[in-house]
């Protein structure tokens, strides 16, 4: 296994005394698909929020691409190349699919406000370049037919794909996916799984994803981390985690 792209050390998070995460440590290797699983309320989404700076942890260290993330904020995380999708879609509802995807490119923007205002300098070339990148990603995720639709009018499954496109268009090194297949049927899950594998293989993007469907997780991921009540109870290959007695207990209950 190659070296860690993201390393999480001893991260704790609490909300007004209620512990959401307790001393979580694990590494995400460069190029892998890492699944975060665990029962509801285990702290999975909170952990993603800590990684890209939506929440600030009480304690602990994050290292991304060899550099310590001392004060992660969402925008800083994005600039460093951490992309993110949300459990409940967080799209720009009144914009078209194309504009949503283009908005994901801002971290690569170089042209200044004044250049855009007067249509001089880098403005035109950047517009053209961004348009090409957005079209590529839209084609990659096979949503060309909806390019000009207002996203608020699209069905849920397609919105999830638009959100993936927005996160992917700036080619992040690390992609955090919060339940990318929630509410989907078997076929839809297969399709999203295929996109995730394509992203991982073709674009060499490291992926951390939260998913409840254990079948999908076992088939998709290289590495599985299990959380329960804010603690890590399992960490290893899918096979190791499946055989871990603590994990079985968390999911199925134990005999007392």
């Amino acid at each position, binding site marked *: 296994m190659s070296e860690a792209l993201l390393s999480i050390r001893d991260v704790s998070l609490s909300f007004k005394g209620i512990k959401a995460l307790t001393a979580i440590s694990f590494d995400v290797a460069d190029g892998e698909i890492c699944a975060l699983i665990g029962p509801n309320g285990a702290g999975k989404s909170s952990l993603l929020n800590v990684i890209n700076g939506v929440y600030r942890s009480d304690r602990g260290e994050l290292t991304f691409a060899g550099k310590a993330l001392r004060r992660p904020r969402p*925008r800083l995380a994005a600039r460093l190349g951490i992309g*993110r999708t949300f459990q409940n879609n*967080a799209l720009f509802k009144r*914009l078209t699919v194309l504009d949503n995807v283009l908005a994901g490119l*801002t*971290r690569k923007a170089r042209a200044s406000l004044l250049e*855009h205002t007067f249509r001089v300098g880098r403005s035109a070339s950047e517009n053209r370049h961004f348009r090409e990148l957005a079209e590529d990603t839209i084609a990659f995720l096979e949503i060309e037919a909806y390019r000009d*639709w207002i996203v608020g*009018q699209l069905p849920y499954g397609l919105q999830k794909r638009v959100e993936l496109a927005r996160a992917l268009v700036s080619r992040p090194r690390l992609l955090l996916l919060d339940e990318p297949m929630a509410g989907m049927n078997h076929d839809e899950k297969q399709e999203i799984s295929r996109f995730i594998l394509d992203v991982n293989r073709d674009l060499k993007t490291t992926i951390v994803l939260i998913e409840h469907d254990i079948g999908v997780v076992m088939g998709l991921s290289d590495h599985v981390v299990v959380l329960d009540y804010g603690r890590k109870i399992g960490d290893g290959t899918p096979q190791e985690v499946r055989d871990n007695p603590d994990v079985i207990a968390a999911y199925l209950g134990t005999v007392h």
Partner: protein
Amino acid sequence: MTALAAPAPTQTVEHPDVLRRWRAGPLAIAGLVAAFYALGFVVHDYWFNAILIPFLIMALAGLGLNLLTGYAGQASLGTGAFMSVGAFATYNVLLRLPDLPLPVSLVIGGLFGALAGVIFGLPSLRIKGFYLTASTLAAQFFLPWLFNQYGWFSNYTTSGSISAPKLVFLGADLSTPLGRYLLTLTSVVILTWLAWNLVTSQVGRNWMAIRDMDTAAAVAGIPIAFNKLASFAISSFIIAIAGALWAFAYLGTVDARSFDLDRSFTVLFIIIIGGMGSIAGAFIGSAFVILVPILISNVSANLFAGAIDAGQSENLQKILFGALIVYFLIKEPNGLYALLLRARRRLALWPLKS
């Protein structure tokens, strides 16, 4: 593409074209601008001050507010205040630096407006929505008071209302009705072009992203604070120039009382009625707000032969505007602009049912 294909659009799902921008061709735009210039040389003098100049200036103010509210999602009731900054700053530049050419003085007035916008936009970094709107009232009450209170701003005139200096550019006297019209029209054309550039660029997209969901915008890498303040600055720049034109090209006097809260509300009505988040909306809304009162007073004078007096027709106008604003807020947040787009689509498909 089978599993995730969208269901066939149902009647509740509108065709995407409905809300898409009106991609008017450059020829159509050039034609429209040329027609407005030509209009200046054919109409009666009455038209300039009664209709054309106030229409253009209020459209410009609406355009400025629409950048802030319609695009960047930050509601403001400080429009009148930012107009007053433009008027008083430009007046003082004309007075104290008389050698500067007129356009430069206007731009400096606009820059002071932008500065005021940034200062009174600072609360937007912490609060949103209704609370932010209420905080922009601070600008509305403070700035006109400041200009009234300290004589320096009005060059120590006793009445607090000062007549505008002569408008001259390149030796041409712009104080005639036609001159004031051409000055206004040219300013509007240039500023509209710049605003159009902005809203169709990545900057405009960032503003709309912040409007629709600011957390998601931050996660997507959009600098929130910078964009909010930039939208305040640019919006107030345009509004300040509208204020300077209102004082110099329309009223002929500089008076803080002409930039009261009513002015702020009128500009807000313009964008609600015309269309939030569209450039054409500011012009449609302004035409509506300027023309309807004239229409009402003409109709009540001619049709009812004086049975409705001026006070009543003014009340009628308020009732009509109030009802329309409630209607638009509930039924059509995208305003007359969206209604026009829909009508255009229906006409294009006619006689097929759309």
